[in-house]
């Protein structure tokens, strides 16, 4: 097995051993899904049609914004970076392996919600499963790219948790997954469009994967990719 593939597998194992990461990738999203799914479908039966999407948005946002930056920050904000550097491991590799591992975890979590929701809460499923998962994949990549920037920029765990909440909470409140975005004041609805969760939720609801819907996500990915490249370059130059 090549070094890169071994690195992905290793990162996957490290994520499983990291309780903080495991909580945000699986435990909290799935417990929240079970708890809120029961409440939503009991008091607002119409949410059965969007429960898979809203819970996927919640879980992915939590994993990518609150969870994924932790191992990235632990690597790049500490002496681990130096160990990798002297060990001949290119500086961008830990970031890529972290993101691929996180992507797989979040896809698994999304799949669990996809299959469990109809069984447990009798929800409807997306018209086209392949399109749904293509949208989920795009949304995960976008959210992880934002999480990557957070993890690279912020070294302190407490500051990271605080900064992540500034993205996570508005994503929940303004994207329409907790209550319809149409009910929000215009200014807040407009602010909601700054967060990938809003666009991801819209695309999942329509079950249409088109360029117009993808554009905000692609722009976010591109901007974050540029930011990550510059940050890693600057971190390499310190030494």
């Amino acid at each position, binding site marked *: *097995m*090549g*070094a890169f593939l*071994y*690195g992905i597998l*290793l990162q996957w*194992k*490290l994520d499983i*051993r*990291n309780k903080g990461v495991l909580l945000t990738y699986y435990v909290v999203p799935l417990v929240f899904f079970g708890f809120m799914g029961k409440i939503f479908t009991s008091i607002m039966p119409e949410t059965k049609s969007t429960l898979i999407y809203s819970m996927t948005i919640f879980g992915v946002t939590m994993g990518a914004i609150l969870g994924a930056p932790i*191992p990235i920050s*632990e*690597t790049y904000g*500490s*002496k*681990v970076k*130096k*160990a990798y*550097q*002297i*060990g*001949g*491991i290119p500086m961008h590799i830990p970031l890529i392996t972290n993101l691929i591992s996180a992507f797989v975890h979040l896809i698994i979590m999304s799949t669990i919600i996809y299959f469990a929701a109809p069984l447990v809460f009798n929800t409807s499923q997306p018209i086209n499963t392949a399109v749904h998962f293509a949208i989920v994949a795009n949304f995960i990549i976008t959210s992880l790219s934002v999480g990557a920037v957070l993890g690279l920029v912020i070294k302190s765990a407490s500051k990271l948790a605080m900064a992540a909440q500034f993205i996570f909470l508005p994503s929940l409140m303004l994207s329409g997954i907790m209550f319809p975005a149409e009910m929000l004041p215009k200014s807040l609805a407009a602010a909601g469009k700054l967060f990938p969760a809003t666009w991801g939720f819209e695309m999942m609801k329509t079950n249409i994967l088109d360029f117009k819907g993808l554009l905000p996500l692609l722009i976010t990915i591109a901007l974050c990719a540029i930011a990550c490249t510059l940050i890693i370059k600057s971190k390499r*130059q310190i*030494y």
Partner: protein
Amino acid sequence: MSTAIKVENLIKSYGQNTAIKGISFNVNKGEVFALLGINGAGKTTTLECIEGLLKYQSGKISIDGSFGVQIQSSSLPENIKAIEAFTYFCKWNKANIDLSIFESLGLSEIKNKQYCQMSTGQKRRLHLALALIGSPDIIFLDEPTAGLDVEGRAALHGQIRKLKSMGKTILLSSHDMAEVESLCDRIAILKDGRIVFIGTSRELTAEMHSKISLQIKTSKPLEKTDFIHSTFTGTDSEYTTFITSNIGDSLIELLNFLKNSSNPVVDIRIVHQSLEESFLGIAKEGK
């Protein structure tokens, strides 16, 4: 003897602060060479410039051969197991996963232990194992025994001697005089980013033992007086201390002076400086 590492007029600054002020030295192939100095002397900065981890303002560094690095300020992910880290680093370096390195460093028993569960000594040995991947010609060790207990230090010293016997060139930094004296062929003492001594441990020992402390107690207190063969360094409530490298002439000169000044001698002590004291003298005062 051919040169493995050549450092010429190395200068490294952090903003306005010049940490390394134009140092030059060579390390011969197969030699154990130490950079010795107190904290902040510039040992780690020098090593990291040579290793390519730090950019430097001017100077020239040449390295003849492959090298492995064990630095003091490095870490690994908390949950990674020893064997996983070793395998990962081997794969990136396209090296065989040679578990004999693990065995020789006593890591076999802890190969499935996570990094966060390892003792300081075990972590040091793991980082040394990572530095030895691919059997490099040159090994850099930054304060390899710092924070280790007596047993851990002895084990690591044994490893360094074993590497030397295999013909490896080792450049290490330390602030432990005894460690350096027992392990190294040559030593450079750094002070404030400059080399204040360079030579073999025997030369260093000879230089250190050449300084003798002459402590004299007289009936009347002795005032500060400089002599041809000895230098006044201070006085306490009882004894006045002089430093000399010529004990015979110093004693004659001092006793004659006291006889002429009618100040009888009550006691005389002749004290050789310990290696540690002499090193501190060189490292702190450049003497």
